[in-house]
């Protein structure tokens, strides 16, 4: 049950189109700070890693448990978490509890916001030019992850064999 936004890290080019589209659709302005999907950037050994990060749709969601007003619920159709804006008071309990840093309190409207998957039709997936974002059923995620891991292993093994005896090629 449920759908997730699957992130292919190797395909992402870091163009930040998803952030712009998300904030434009939900907040009516191009402001990556107010976007529900955030690009994170790390630098390690001179190599830059750019990755989108968004709500993971946990099975037992901590945000749902700790909310004092019981404002967070699941969309019955897509299984995505959604926040009732009338109940939310902006105490940011959910943002402190979330292990992924996905939900946060928008200071302009004073309410907590989280990825709702645009009600089953995510804009970020539509605008992503490199196909790094994919909207899939959550039971497909494991298979996709396993496939990508296997591919990575095969590539690495090939690399090892190439570097071990360069004469063979």
């Amino acid at each position, binding site marked *: 049950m449920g759908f997730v936004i699957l992130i292919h*890290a190797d395909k992402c080019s870091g163009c930040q189109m998803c952030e712009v589209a998300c904030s434009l659709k939900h907040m009516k302005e191009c402001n990556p700070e107010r976007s529900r999907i*955030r690009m*994170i950037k*790390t630098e*390690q050994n001179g190599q830059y890693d750019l*990755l989108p*990060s968004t709500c993971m749709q946990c099975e*037992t969601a*901590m945000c749902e*448990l*700790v909310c*004092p*007003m019981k404002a967070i619920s699941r969309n019955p159709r897509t299984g995505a978490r959604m926040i009732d804006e009338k109940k939310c*008071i*902006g*105490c*940011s*309990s959910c*943002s*402190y*509890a*979330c*292990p*992924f*840093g996905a939900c*946060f309190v928008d200071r302009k409207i*004073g309410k907590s916001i989280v990825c709702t998957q645009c009600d089953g039709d995510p804009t970020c997936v539509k605008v992503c030019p490199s196909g790094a974002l994919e909207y899939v059923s959550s039971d497909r995620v494991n298979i996709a992850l396993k496939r990508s891991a296997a591919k*990575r292993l095969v*590539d*690495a093994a090939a*690399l090892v064999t190439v570097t071990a005896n360069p004469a063979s090629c």
Partner: protein
Amino acid sequence: MPLEWLNFIDGQLLEIVFYLFGIGLGIRCLAFLVNIIKSQFLPDQGFAWKKARKILYLLAVFFLPYHRGLVKQPVYTILRYIFHACLFFIPVFYSGHLNMLVDTHLGWYWEPIPDNYIETATLLVIGMGCLFIARRIVLQRTRKQSSLMDIFFILITILPFITGYWYVNETLDHISFFKNYMWYLHVFSGEVMMTMAVFLFIRTKLEASRCVGCSSCTISCPTGTLEVKETGTKRNFLYSQYLCICCGACVSTCPETAAILKHEISIPLFFRFFGKKKINEITMNRCEGCRKVYAPDPQIEKIKTILCANAIIPPETMGYCRRCKQLLSNHMRLPHPI
């Protein structure tokens, strides 16, 4: 009691108290208007009437029986509204008072409410006052919050009504002291009540033992009366009483029921027209990754207890800020390829 004292209570003191009442309330209204025009919460753009409309709306919230505290204590809030409405209507529309007013040099007169209604309402006020005092003494939660002063306010408020009722109905006239002096007792208690009303404020208080420092009360506040200021690792809650319209937004919002609206009598407060007062202080903790001031300590503790109660071990990422959490989670999920 000497006659000149009685005449003083009846005559000059009454006049002084009326002037004090009018001027004091006028100054308070003026201070409210100046504060509300200065505040940042009015729309910046737009015409002047847009601002005026907002001010009128805020004033309407102050005067109309619409209280967001209704959500939490419906019966008590409705009773309180009836009580306050009676406090205004009984003295202003009682025919005896109006007959006295028409004899003065002002010569004002308006249509009084029939006497039998006034009598019922007076009994209602006295009954409700006794009920409020009993509530303060009996209920455990309110007893902790209230001091002797709160009971004193209610007593002072209902005393003119009691003496007035006795005076009109001649209930205690078989005792000669009350027969002679009930009128003066009524006038004097009324004067005390009116003097108190000038210096009586209703203020928001945050109970330090319950407040977790989430600052949702400051988000919900429509006038910017409650403000949060962070200095170092401390989060300070500031309050300016002349901006407060007693709408009860903070009371209804607070998830811990730490915010309460409470009467307070204070002469220095009356003269502090623009100051802000610190009403609570919460310690913040720093993100373990970037050392940025991040979350209030009591709230993190509360979240941990909730998670433990639901048989979930609080994750290690709890002490990190949002940005660090995103980095951490992705590093764990996506290690670098071999």
